[in-house]
Each structure stands twice: as structure tokens, then as C-alpha cells.
């Protein structure tokens, strides 16, 4: 009784869709003119679903049969859903056919756990090996690591995949134990550690021998589910910043909890996916990675939760009015970067452009600075307006929230470019 490929595809895509990490960047694979595929340093999105998420990779499960019963997961064994399994050969073929039509940038392979972690990893490895060896495929591969998998298999996986990921899902161990009694953080941190170790070793080796094998050149990533348990933003971001301190950890993804299962008394009752919170977490994550913020500046004992009405940078600036206004023609790059309404690109442009002539309000607008927000925090050659000091943070806050609430549409937090 074999299922048609189209049914398997539907079932296994449905099962994989809540896993958000779609990024395919960070790896360059050149095609030496044999075979198919190349990985681009800046991953390419190929489509967008109606919910506005980027589709870069064929995100699919090898099987959605699972022996575990994680409360937050649609595939848990106690759920009565349709199940299907691809043969490794079917899935490899499908990946290649999609890739040849430029539908996708590569494969993101995950799986439910069948028999045990190692057996599952072996099956997944078969797909990846078929692609690399039989199909001469050089495109991007992201492979999930199954918690508890043995170091040998993780090593194998890293030789064929560009990125490996293993999801923490629930930020604190106690809560994880509640929701996924068969899992613990050790079974996640251990593989994370192996990946890091192998990747660093391979980097060292490659310095000595150019042809030493590469191990997961795009590093690793992980995911945290937000809103299924009671962790504060401070708990989450503290964890994030610790994770980013590990070499090879490239991205932490946040997934607003979607109540996919029938009511389970271990889970909170949510009427709405916490999109706004998820969005603010991504913004805070950006501040950590690109804006040289320390996690304690964003959240701390006094501010354990992110302000839902203000982006975290603006919220930080309003708590530190004494640091403003900054003079865009004199201030350091680091100071300019901290001005609400000025992004990394604009900050760089300001620093480059002011060498030629002092910048005016008009020049700043042209560069793309959001003056609505920035105006309270800067001075420049011809700007005499009121700054946050005279206007008071409370009034700025009011002026900006009434505006943002109406005009802000949530951008694509799944945007791919980092």
C-alpha cells in the first residue's frame, strides 16, 4: 500500500513547516563544472508563502512517525495525524528535480525519531549521501541533528551537510522536562558541542592541508519556542547571548508557539500566536549580533520583558536620554549605530559621506534615515529641533507609539540575509 509521492510531500511538508530556520546563507560551494548546484554566500529566497515567509529550502521530514511525545509538536506519537515516510531515494530525486527548476536553494532535512536516534540519523544520512555522491549535488544542505545521536554519525553528517542544527526548543530544562519528558538539555548540548569541536578541528586541519575535509562550513543553528512556557524575554535573551558566544553558533531562531495540538494541560491556553513578541526578540537578537549591544542593556532585572510597543533599540534609547543627542557629523560609528532610526547601512553611509561635507537633514533623509524616530536623538548641521532631553522620554514615547502602532507592519523576521 504505497502512498503517491504527492501525498507524502503534502503530509511531510505539513509536518515540517513549524520549524522556522530557513536561512541558507553562510556557505560557499563552487561547482567545479561537473554535477549540479552551488551554494551562495548570501542565501537566496525562492518564494514566499501566503503567510509571508521565505521559502529557500525544501523543508521536509523524511518521516513524521515519531516515538516521542513532545507536547508542543504536531508529530508527537499520541497525535492522530496522517503519517508517511519517504524512501531516501525518493527524497533525493525530488530535491534534485526541484533544484533543477530553480524552485529551491537546497534541502532542509529533518525527521521524526524512529527506533532510536542513531537509526534515524543513518536514514537521513542516506539521503544526503545520495545527493552528494550519486547526484553530484553541490547545493546547500541543512540537516537536523537528532538529540542523542552518536558522535560518529554527527561527524558523518557534518562532512556532507553545510549546516547542522539541533533545537533546544524550551529555554529552561525544567520546562523542557515538563513538556518533553523523554528529552533533556544534555542530549542537545552534547551534539552541539560535538559539532563545534569537529568544525573547529576541521578549520585547523584545513589551514595545514588545503584538502582536509570541511565540516559543516555554515556552522550550526538552534531554535527556541516562545510562549509555550513561562520564561521571560530576559531568560531567553540571556540564553541566546550565551549561545552566540560559542564559536560556530550562527543563528538562534525564535518560534512563536502555535497551538498545533488539542488542548494539553501542560501547555498554556493561547488564543493568538505571539507574533509581536517573536518579532521583538528577533530585533533584540539583531542588536546583539550587529549593533554591538550587550544583552544586559536590552533586558535586565528591571526590564525583564521587551516592550511590545517599541522596538528594543528605541526602548533602550528612551531609558538613556542622557546619552543623546549625538552629533552625526562628529560622533563615533558606534554611537551613531545606537540612534533609533539609523541602521547598520545608514550608519556606514553617514560615516563615509561626512568626510566630504557636513551632513544636513536633507542629506540624512536621502541616505535613508527614518527621521520620524531619529529626529529626537541627533543633531546635525542645520537641525535645531527638539531632542529627547528637552522633549522628555515620556513624550517621545507617546509620539512614537501612536505612530508606530498604526504604521508598523511586521516585517519578515524570516528574512534570510544573515
Amino acid at each position, binding site marked *: 500500500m504505497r502512498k503517491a*509521492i*504527492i501525498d507524502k*510531500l*503534502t*503530509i511531510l*511538508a*505539513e509536518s515540517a*513547516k*513549524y520549524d522556522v530556520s530557513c536561512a541558507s546563507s553562510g556557505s560557499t560551494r*563552487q*561547482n567545479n*563544472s*561537473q*554535477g*549540479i*548546484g*552551488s551554494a*551562495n554566500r548570501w542565501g*537566496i*529566497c*525562492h*518564494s*514566499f*508563502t*501566503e*503567510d*509571508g*515567509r*521565505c*521559502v529557500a529550502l*525544501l*523543508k521536509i521530514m523524511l518521516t513524521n512517525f515519531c516515538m516521542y511525545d513532545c507536547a508542543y509538536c504536531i508529530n508527537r506519537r499520541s497525535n492522530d495525524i496522517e503519517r508517511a515516510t519517504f524512501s531516501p531515494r525518493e527524497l533525493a530525486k*525530488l530535491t534534485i*528535480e*526541484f533544484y*533543477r*527548476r*530553480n*524552485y529551491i536553494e537546497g534541502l532542509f532535512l529533518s525527521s521524526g525519531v524512529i527506533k532510536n536516534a542513531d537509526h534515524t540519523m543513518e536514514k537521513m544520512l542516506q539521503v544526503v549521501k545520495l545527493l552528494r555522491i550519486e547526484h*553530484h549535488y553541490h*547545493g546547500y544542505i541543512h540537516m537536523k541533528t537528532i538529540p542523542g545521536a552518536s558522535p560518529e554519525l554527527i561527524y558523518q553528517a557534518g562532512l556532507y551537510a553545510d549546516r547542522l542544527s539541533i533545537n533546544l526548543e524550551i529555554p529552561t530544562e525544567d520546562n523542557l522536562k515538563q513538556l518533553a519528558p523523554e528529552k533533556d538539555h544534555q542530549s542537545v548540548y552534547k551534539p552541539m558541542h560535538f559539532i563545534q569541536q569537529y568544525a573547529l578541528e576541521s578549520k585547523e586541519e584545513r589551514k595545514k592541508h588545503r584538502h582536509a575535509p570541511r565540516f559543516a562550513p555554515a556552522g550550526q543553528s538552534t531554535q527556541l519556542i516562545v510562549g509555550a512556557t513561562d520564561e521571560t524575554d530576559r531568560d531567553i535573551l540571556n540564553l541566546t547571548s550565551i549561545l552566540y558566544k560559542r564559536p560556530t553558533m550562527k543563528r538562534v531562531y525564535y518560534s512563536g508557539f*502555535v497551538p498545533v495540538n488539542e488542548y494539553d494541560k501542560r501547555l498554556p491556553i493561547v488564543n493568538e*500566536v505571539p*507574533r509581536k513578541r517573536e518579532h521583538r526578540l528577533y530585533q533584540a537578537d539583531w542588536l546583539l549580533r550587529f549593533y554591538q549591544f550587550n544583552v544586559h542593556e536590552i533586558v535586565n532585572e528591571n526590564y525583564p520583558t521587551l516592550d511590545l510597543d517599541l522596538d528594543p533599540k528605541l526602548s533602550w534609547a528612551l531609558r538613556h536620554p542622557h546619552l543623546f543627542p549625538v552629533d552625526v557629523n562628529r560622533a563615533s560609528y558606534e554611537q551613531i549605530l545606537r540612534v533609533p532610526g539609523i541602521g547598520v547601512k545608514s550608519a556606514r*553611509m553617514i560615516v*563615509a*559621506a561626512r*568626510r*566630504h*561635507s557636513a*551632513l*544636513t537633514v*536633507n*542629506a540624512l533623509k*536621502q*541616505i535613508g534615515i527614518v527621521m520620524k524616530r531619529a529626529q529626537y536623538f541627533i543633531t546635525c548641521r542645520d537641525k535645531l529641533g527638539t531632542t529627547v532631553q528637552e522633549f522628555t522620554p515620556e513624550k517621545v514615547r507617546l509620539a512614537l507609539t501612536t505612530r508606530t502602532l498604526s504604521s508598523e*507592519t*511586521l*516585517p*519578515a523576521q524570516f528574512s534570510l540575509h544573515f
Partner: protein
Amino acid sequence: MNIFYFDHTLQGLLCAIFDAYKIKCFPDLLLAEGEIGPLIVDTTHTVETMSYKYQRVSQALKKKLSPFALTQIRYIWHAETPESKMLLFRYLCKVLDSAKNIEKHYSDPDILAVKKLAKKVSAERHYLMMFVRFNKTADDIYFAPVAPRYNVLPFIYRHFQQRFADQKWIIYDESRHYGYFFNGETIEEMTLLDDKDFLINNKINATYLAEDEPQFTALWQKYIQALTIRERINPKLQKRAMPTRFWKYLPETWTK
């Protein structure tokens, strides 16, 4: 009004710059040879494209601009908008007139305009890398019709050549009536002789498709549907990321 006629190539434009400095007369309008100019004209000059001229100019530019700015010049040239030729001309003169590199002098309107337009062209290039959709034809060629806003095919074929090195493919600009054909070894420019028969309503005439092609189109459509999270439908966001002008070539948007 001063008018320069030239052969409508980038090299020709560089020669126009050479001539302008030589005869000390700067054009208000650049026209392709044969194009009809305005009624009131003070002087006209016809530029002769010669290699020593454009080489001199391009060497001078190379000394004054970063590689990135040199790429921007090609982007502006391929923008092919009504203003882009004169914008490029003025920009290059400013670059040559200044002793130091001025490519980041963004308070100058021309320099900023170059940056902005180049960015748009570059974005269009990126859109194509995202939204090209190949259809396998019965003779095993993967064919993708496109209609980019700017003439960006010359900037993308290398990417596809690298990526799809073991399949034959064609990317065809329907609105400019030319494309690039990769035959498995080399790239050639080509034009469809009978595009009205081959392409019907922006789609490849079904009779020319490979037998299993509709099946893969359907698999892709199904996949995108299955991936959508119904609780989060947000068409505005979708359209911003994937402008509707591309949709006619994207099978995943056809089913509605």
C-alpha cells in the same frame, strides 16, 4: 541645447565623454544614432566610437573609483531608463573632474541618484535569481521566460551557469526579445524565432513541455500550499517580498 549622437553602447558613452572634454562642449541630451531629437537645437555632435578613446576614459575611471563603483556604472547603463544615460554622463564627468574619489559624496544629487538606481538594478538582478522558474521541455532544455524591469540578464547568466552546469537551459527576456542559452558547455545569446507559438500568455506552450513536467509543477504547488501556516496569512507581507509583477512566471501563485 547641445545634443550628442552615439552608437548606444557603454563604450560609445565613454567616447562621448572623451569628445566632450576634447571639444569643450557638454551635451544636454544623449541620443542613439537615428533617434529623433527635439526641435530646438544649438549644436549636434556625432560621437565616433574608437577604442583609444574609451580606453583612456575607462583607465582614468579605474584610477578614481572602487571596483564596486565600476560595477555600479554597468548597472546604470543597463537600467535603460529615460534619465539613466545623462545621469551616468554627468556622474562620470564629476568623477573625472574631482581630484579625489567622490563615489561616497552622497549629498551630491547625481552621486546619490547613481547609488539609488544602481541599487534598484542590483535588486532586480537578485529578484531574477530568486524567481527564475525553469520548465523542462521535450528536448531536455530547461526554459525560463522572464520580463525584468531593467535589462539585467547580462548580470545573472554566470550565476546560473555555475549552478546548473550539467543541464541545458535558456533564460529568455520576453519583453526585450532575447535570452541566453547554455548548451552544456558555453553560453550564447539567442532570440526565439517564433515566440508567439512557443510562449502563450507568458507560459510555455504545453505541447513543447516534457511529459513529466506538469507533475513537477503540481508537486511544487502542493508543497507551497502545505507549507503555508493558515493562522498567519499575511498577503501584504507576501506581496512586499515577492512583487506581483513576477507572479505570472511563478507556478505556485497560479492555483488561485
